[in-house]
């Protein structure tokens, strides 16, 4: 390689040779003949012209550089075919540095030009034109040396490329450090690579998913292509990118149309107009393959060292950027998870406190309604819902009754006040299945589709709903607690776990309320029962008092009084027996008559009573009054009437009176001894005449006929039997005679 200073020295020597200065030439140790030989052999291009610029001499190196053999004495100014300035502008021979040196009679140094050979190739060179003068100093010609600087130029370009590459790399790193997305930082690398590319191509980056099963496009390719290859599987049968990541080594396909593996994708190559496809794995420092770098060439292309080098540099830089990016993603993910768990902990703590405060209230508070409201409020908070409700199962109707809610409008409240067991709502369904029902989106739920319930939810602005059955400690259904969201929502396991604690408390509250209510009802019933019992006992005592008082008052002797009193109290007691058997709800007249007459019809004597009448149920009071009257009549008959002799007997009949609303009962004594009207009404007679009439609200007839006593009472059926819906007694038969 000839250095620049050598060239100048040779130039100076040539000047001396040209002016035929033997002394000076001798100084260099050459004579003219030797000099000529030396010039011919020089590896640098040298030529001379006369003062007019016609070429007089050129050496072989000059012919090689020019790619032609110039015509001596004809070619003007330069040995080259065509000339250009370094920037490519054509340069006329008459304006070339040699022409300037001749016309201006001066050496020209430090310029560059480009020679174009007849075959079109171009050679950058540096000319050294120097005028030649005779001893008088007159211009006689010029000598030029052309120094080929293509290697120098190439090195210079490579330097510039390296600088550009370093700058691009730096820019990409900076972008990555500043937190730019991968598209941006890797995009800068691609831009840098494309600027340096000598042939038409595309570059792209792909990144592997964390599982290492798929590749995702990051940057470089148009959307249409990305749509086709995104999610490309990493594996042995994959396209170059997937294959390169799988193998961990570059996959070079000079022409994809020649590759069998590309067969199914050939259309892609045609559509996106590429043939060569190279893929380089991107590895982290630890050797993990995290993605790939791909280059697509318009023309078939095998990998050149230079391209491999570039790809390796790109892949290396990209690996640093991607590693950093993934680390920062991981850091972000960890810190986010940390924040999330802190938030969850705080929320859980708040929920636990809330639940605890409700528990405390449940123990202390008497106001159940306020507690329901509190539970509904807490349900909304725990589940992050817009609405919440609590329903109690009404066992009589087998339906859910809304007792508290949060967030329902008036219409929703009215709609859901009662929910039937078989309703298509989530709570109806949860009640039926006894399990929690979650509908994350009522619009996407098959079970809900086109039901009235779906329409109701829409109207209420509800999109998602959850219903949890409230179950008693013994496992029976108590009600339902539900939460509702305006947007589609699927409650998390954590939320549901806390919610279940709340549901337990709600169930306990309802259960407690129900047993308290039942207890209160029982206590009230008992109080009522005791009051009634007290009243009855007092009234009975008053009755007994009256009987005792009047019996004793009218008795002739103490013994007679005691006997009458005993008999009356026993009669009263027997009537009570009948009524008690019927729980004091009423008494069958036939039974009462049988009971009242039992004491008088025993023994082996002839039948003393002829009883006829249908079954008729009397009110307790009427039953008592009739029983007592029958007792008095029978006692009187035994003392003075039909039962006082051997043959007498009594006919007792009852049935409907003249009017369907009337009842008539008759007692007539037959075949007794003759009787007469008593002078004074005894207690018995008064009891029959006034007492019975008063108690039955009817009219009593009592006739002391000579051939036997006749008694009859006509009373409204209503007074005897209560309501009108009782069966009417059969009419008394016509044979009956007063």
């Amino acid at each position, binding site marked *: 390689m000839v250095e620049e200073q050598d060239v100048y020295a040779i130039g100076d020597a040539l000047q001396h040779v040209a002016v035929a200065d033997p002394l000076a030439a001798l100084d260099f140790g050459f004579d003219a003949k030797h000099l000529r030989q030396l010039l011919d052999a020089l590896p640098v291009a040298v030529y001379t012209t006369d003062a007019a610029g016609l070429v007089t001499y050129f050496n072989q190196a000059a012919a090689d550089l020019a790619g032609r053999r110039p015509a001596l004495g004809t070619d003007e100014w330069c040995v080259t075919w065509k000339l250009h300035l370094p920037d490519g502008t054509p340069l006329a021979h008459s304006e070339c540095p040699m022409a300037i040196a001749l016309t201006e009679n001066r050496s020209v140094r430090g310029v560059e030009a480009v020679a174009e050979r007849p075959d079109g190739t171009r050679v950058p060179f540096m000319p050294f034109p120097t005028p030649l003068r005779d001893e008088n100093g007159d211009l006689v010609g010029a000598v030029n040396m052309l120094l080929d600087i293509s290697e120098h130029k190439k090195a210079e370009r490579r330097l510039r490329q390296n600088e550009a590459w370093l700058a691009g790399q730096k820019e990409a790193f900076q972008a990555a450090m500043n937190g730019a997305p991968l598209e941006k930082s890797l995009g800068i690398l691609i831009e840098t690579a494309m600027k340096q590319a000598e042939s038409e191509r595309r570059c792209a980056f792909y990144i592997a998913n964390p599982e290492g099963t798929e590749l995702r496009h990051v940057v470089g390719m148009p959307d249409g292509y990305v749509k086709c290859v995104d999610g490309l599987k990493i594996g042995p049968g994959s396209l170059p990118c997937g294959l390169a990541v799988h193998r961990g080594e570059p996959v070079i396909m000079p022409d994809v149309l020649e590759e069998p593996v590309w067969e199914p994708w050939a259309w892609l190559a045609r559509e996106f107009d590429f043939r060569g496809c190279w893929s380089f794995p991107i590895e982290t420092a630890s050797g993990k393959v995290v993605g790939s770098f791909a280059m697509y060439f318009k023309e078939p292309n095998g990998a050149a060292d230079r391209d491999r080098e570039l790809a390796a540099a790109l892949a290396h830089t990209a690996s640093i950027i991607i590693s950093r990016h993934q680390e920062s993603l991981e850091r972000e993910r960890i810190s986010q998870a940390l924040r999330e768990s802190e938030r969850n902990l705080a929320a859980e703590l708040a929920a636990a406190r809330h639940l605890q405060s409700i528990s405390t209230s449940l123990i202390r508070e008497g106001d159940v309604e306020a507690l329901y409201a509190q539970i509904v409020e807490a349900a909304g908070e725990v589940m992050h819902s817009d609405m919440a409700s609590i329903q109690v199962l009404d066992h009589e109707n087998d339906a859910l009754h809304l007792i508290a809610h949060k967030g329902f409008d008036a219409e929703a409240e009215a709609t859901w006040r009662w929910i039937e067991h078989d309703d298509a709502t989530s709570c109806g369904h949860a009640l039926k299945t006894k399990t929690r029902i979650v509908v994350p989106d009522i619009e996407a739920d098959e079970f809900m589709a086109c039901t009235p319930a779906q329409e109701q939810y829409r109207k209420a602005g509800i999109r998602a709903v959850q219903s949890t059955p409230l179950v008693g400690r013994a496992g029976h259904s108590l009600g339902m607690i539900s939460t509702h969201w305006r947007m589609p929502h699927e409650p998390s396991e954590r939320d549901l776990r806390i919610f279940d604690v709340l549901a337990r408390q709600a169930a306990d509250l309802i259960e407690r309320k129900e047993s308290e209510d039942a207890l209160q009802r029982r206590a009230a019933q008992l109080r009522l029962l005791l009051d009634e019992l007290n009243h009855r006992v007092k009234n009975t005592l008053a009755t007994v008092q009256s009987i005792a008082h009047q019996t004793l008052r009218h008795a002739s002797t103490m013994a007679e009084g005691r006997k009458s009193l005993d008999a009356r109290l026993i009669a009263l007691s027997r009537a009570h027996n009948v009524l008690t058997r019927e729980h004091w709800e009423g008494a069958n007249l036939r039974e009462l008559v049988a009971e009242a007459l039992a004491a008088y019809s025993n023994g082996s004597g002839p039948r003393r009573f002829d009883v006829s009448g249908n079954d008729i149920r009397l009110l307790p009071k009427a039953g008592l009054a009739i029983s007592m009257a029958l007792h008095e009549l029978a006692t009187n008959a035994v003392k003075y009437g039909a039962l006082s002799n051997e043959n007498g007997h009594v006919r007792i009949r009852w049935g409907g009176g003249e009017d369907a609303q009337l009842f008539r009962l008759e007692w007539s004594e037959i075949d007794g001894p003759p009787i007469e009207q008593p002078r004074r009404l005894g207690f018995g007679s008064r009891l029959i005449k006034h007492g019975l009439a008063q*108690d039955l*609200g009817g009219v009593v007839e009592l006739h002391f006929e000579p051939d036997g006593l006749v008694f009859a009472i006509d009373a409204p059926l209503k007074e005897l039997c209560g309501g009108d819906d009782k069966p009417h007694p059969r009419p008394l038969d016509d044979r009956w005679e007063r």
Partner: protein
Amino acid sequence: MPAAESRLTGKRVLVVEDEALVTMLLEEGLIDMGCEIADTASRLDDALEKANSLLFDVAILDVNLHGQKTFPIAEVLSSRGIPFVFSTGYEASSLPLSLQQAPVLQKPFQQQDLEQALGTALGV
């Protein structure tokens, strides 16, 4: 038993009572005290009519007539300025507040209870 002269002699009494035996006991007790029985009633409508129309000095009202309360009768009597006595097997506290001033005859009763209750009602 001849009626001895007493503070209640000649007082006309309306007896409202649904239990015939108790009515009879009251009647006898009243007559023994020298009272006259203005009338008796065992049904609410009948009793109301009599309370409105008859002339008498004092009434004995059974609180419960066949399951109906006699408070409307008490009101009629109050408006007529006629004193009355409640007779009942219930506690006195089951009376409405406005009527708790009236003397109460607890069943069963003694003759002197009846006399005292009527005396209180009549202010004699």
